[in-house]
């Protein structure tokens, strides 16, 4: 269980920033340039609660929380109680966490100020085998909010106390305060602006959040900020600009496990910063097309100033340009396309000047410096479709990308040049054609053909022998229809073939490339017996095999030189593993009253896997073969007023290892 002690609100904001950054990776409009929608956060009264218990294979997890909100005209109170437990039966460890954070405030003071007091007690209790450990952390301090300012501001300051013992051999009840190690310090935090609120009623959004904590065992400063501006133009076009920045400087301390027992662990001091500058243009429809353009620059740096031996400092930069084009709905075809080009660079041990000649003191650094790279990545997606009113139509999707990396660094050692030989091109080309051949009144049917070609191309002679080209071919069909008044049936079939070829077969002699095939069929039947009872049945049949495609060009030189062998030799597909998987699932869904949903059923899986035994030249049963019978029960109940519960319980009787899969949750507010 991760139990880092950082201000909870700040964690949430950092998480939002990370999600935005991840979202910006794909081809499409930059997530940082999306105008946020205002989320209204009014004063509320009530109790929110949630509990979730899960058991999967050998790990039990429990998360329970209660949040009490009480607001009157002049006072506000928020008190939460969170408890989580992870019980790992494989590791024989238990990890408990309690958090009782809360806040009380007096509102509507002169000048629109609110004042309050916040507290954040956190307790962690871990056991591993016979050893136990405890950590308590308490932050307490005033909070002041300036709500009537043009820009909302909140300031938090306070004291922090931490106490822990990571070698508790006695029980908790026998422990005294003197058994604990202690640490104290202070924290301060500030929030300025809201990311979803216009600034001064202008098309401008800005927000900043900062948090700092100084303890004698660990010091930490973290901050995030973002600015977004947009300007609609008279001709319908819009311009966008954004800047976002985040910084983490310090070290976290947490209760974890190290050296086969619970331990108070301090992360190495680290400085991590990410920022991104971006600009965008979204055009109004011209002819029948809507164009968009985006440019961005992002930089991420990570350094460990004290743990210099870690040699993990690095700096990543990325210049990115995106062009998007889509057809307006009145155009006869539906069209969406885009091209994205990134110029990337990774500089390990940035800021460190290194010689190009190896010596005893910096050879490790030189070796790591070899991993620096320059790269560019081009991605293009295109989707064209045409569907008529009766549902008949077709769609074509085309995605292609190229990722090119060069490793420019080298050094000399004993007059030899040492360099990274991983310079490569990765090119992925995917195409899919989907046809809807019949009117929708006859049922929903699709036919599709999918093709992808994946090229892995090392440039240098040391690696180019591994260059491969992969092809995937897939054809499939789906059909779904209502055959009787209350009965729907659907069928999906597909067939795959995956082929790999080495670019240089002559130096891969004796090592033929992989080949695999797969055929699947999924039949689903749903029927309603009455309004309250329905039955669902699924039959899934899958056959797959994998092995090597033994063709003449991969024969080793000894066999090639044997005329008797070559006289009768024919290329063949040598199957290493054959897998026949049968799954039958039957479920009865009962809905006795409107708010109750119950499902009772059972799934049966037969995994008939065989692997080739080179000694006997026969196929024997694979270690992964087996049967699994999985009775399951699902229940969900809505109690009204936002209170509801859900339970999903499955026990898997497996010939290899039986296991539970349980998830029970309840949540609500009143």
């Amino acid at each position, binding site marked *: 269980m991760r139990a880092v002690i950082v201000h909870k609100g700040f964690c949430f904001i950092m998480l939002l920033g990370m999600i935005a950054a991840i979202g910006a990776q794909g081809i499409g409009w930059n997530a940082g340039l999306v105008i946020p929608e205002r989320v209204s956060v009014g004063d509320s009264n009530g109790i929110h609660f949630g509990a979730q218990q899960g058991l999967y294979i050998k790990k039990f997890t429990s998360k329970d929380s209660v949040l009490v909100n009480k607001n009157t005209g002049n006072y506000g109170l928020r008190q939460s109680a969170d408890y989580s437990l992870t019980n790992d039966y494989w590791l024989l460890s238990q990890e408990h966490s309690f958090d009782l954070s809360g806040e009380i405030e007096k509102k509507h003071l002169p000048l629109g100020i609110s004042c309050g007091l916040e507290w954040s007690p956190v307790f962690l209790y871990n056991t591993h085998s016979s050893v136990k450990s405890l950590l308590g952390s308490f932050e307490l301090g005033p909070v002041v909010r300036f709500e009537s300012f043009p820009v909302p501001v909140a300031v938090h300051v306070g004291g922090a106390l931490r106490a822990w013992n990571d070698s508790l051999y006695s029980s908790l009840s026998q422990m005294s305060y003197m058994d604990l190690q202690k640490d104290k310090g202070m924290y301060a935090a500030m929030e300025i602006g809201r990311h979803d609120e216009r600034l001064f009623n202008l098309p401008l959004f800005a927000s900043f959040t900062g948090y700092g904590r100084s303890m004698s065992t660990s010091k930490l400063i973290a901050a995030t900020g973002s600015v977004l501006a947009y300007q609609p133009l008279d001709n319908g076009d819009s311009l966008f600009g954004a800047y976002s920045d985040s910084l983490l400087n310090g070290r976290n301390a947490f209760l974890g496990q190290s050296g086969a027992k619970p331990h108070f662990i301090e992360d190495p001091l680290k400085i991590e910063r990410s920022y991104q500058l971006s600009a965008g243009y979204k055009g109004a429809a011209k002819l029948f097309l809507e164009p968009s353009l985006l440019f961005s620059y992002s930089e991420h740096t990570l350094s460990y100033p004290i743990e210099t031996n870690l040699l*993990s400092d690095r700096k990543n930069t990325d210049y990115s340009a995106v062009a998007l084009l889509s057809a307006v709905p009145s155009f006869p075809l539906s069209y969406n396309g885009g091209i994205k080009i990134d110029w990337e660079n990774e500089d390990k041990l940035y800021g460190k000047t290194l010689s190009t000649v190896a010596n005893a003191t910096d050879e490790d650094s030189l070796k790591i410096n070899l991993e620096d790279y320059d790269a560019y990545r081009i991605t293009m997606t295109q989707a064209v479709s045409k569907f008529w009113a009766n549902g008949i139509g077709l769609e074509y999707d085309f995605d292609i990308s190229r990722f090119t990396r060069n490793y420019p660094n080298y050094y000399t050692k004993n007059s030899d040049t040492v360099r990274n030989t991983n310079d490569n091109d990765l090119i992925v080309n995917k195409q899919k054609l989907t046809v809807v051949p019949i009117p929708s009144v006859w049922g929903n049917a699709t036919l599709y053909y999918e093709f992808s070609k994946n090229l892995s191309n090392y440039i240098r002679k040391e690696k180019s022998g591994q260059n491969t080209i992969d092809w995937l071919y897939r054809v499939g069909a789906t059909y779904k229809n209502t055959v009787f008044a209350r009965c729907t049936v659907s069928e999906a079939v597909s067939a795959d073939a995956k082929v790999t070829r080495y670019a240089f077969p002559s130096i891969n002699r004796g090592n033929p490339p992989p080949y695999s095939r797969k055929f699947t069929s999924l039949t689903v039947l749903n029927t309603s017996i009455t309004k309250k009872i329905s039955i669902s049945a699924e039959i899934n049949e899958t056959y797959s095999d994998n092995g090597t495609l033994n063709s003449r060009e991969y024969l080793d030189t000894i066999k090639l030189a044997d005329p008797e062998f070559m006289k009768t030799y024919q290329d063949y597909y040598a199957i290493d593993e054959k897998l026949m998987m049968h799954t039958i699932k039957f479920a009865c869904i009962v809905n006795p009253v409107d708010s109750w949903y119950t499902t009772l059923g059972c799934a049966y899986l037969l995994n008939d896997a065989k692997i080739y035994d080179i000694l006997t030249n026969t196929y024997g049963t694979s270690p992964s073969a087996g049967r699994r019978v999985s009775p399951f029960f699902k229940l969900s109940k809505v109690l009204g007023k936002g209170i509801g519960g859900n339970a999903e319980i499955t026990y898997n009787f497996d010939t290899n290892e039986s296991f539970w899969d349980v998830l029970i949750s309840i949540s609500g507010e009143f």
Partner: protein
Amino acid sequence: MVLQRLLSAIAICVFFNVFSCGIFSPRPVENPISTIPDDPFNFASILWNTGKNFSKLEYTDLFDQSLEYIDINGRVYYKNEVINHLNTTQRRLTVQSVVWAKDTASPDLVISDTTYIANRIYSVSLVDTLQKTYAFSDKASFKLGYNSTINAWTIFEWVDKFPGYSVFHPLFSPQ
């Protein structure tokens, strides 16, 4: 109206055909001198005797894009961090031996035909340039998925039960 539609269609065609100008073509390569893929940590042996194999052993292919390396404290490290660490470690230390043995107490599990859980007990021994030995032994659990784009089994979750920083942990550094 017809002219506008025609111009729009031409614009789409021009945009669509950017790929034909060579930017998606590979560079020429040098004639190879070697064919043995690098696998100093012997990841290939994780799937020995299972009927499956890692047909792509380069780290960029072996590890799924969504890879999560989870240490004993539940802390998560992602693909780039793991690859950076493995690359730098194998440059700084010499791997003497790596064994990924099946864990009889926790047999492998087939979740579906494209998802597989392999539980292993590993022991790794490495030496640095001063012949100082680093040895690690503990349990690891791998969740594998079949990636149909590259036609290969890949690792998308790696739980390392070593209490502290094993050689695979992105914060491990030889002292």
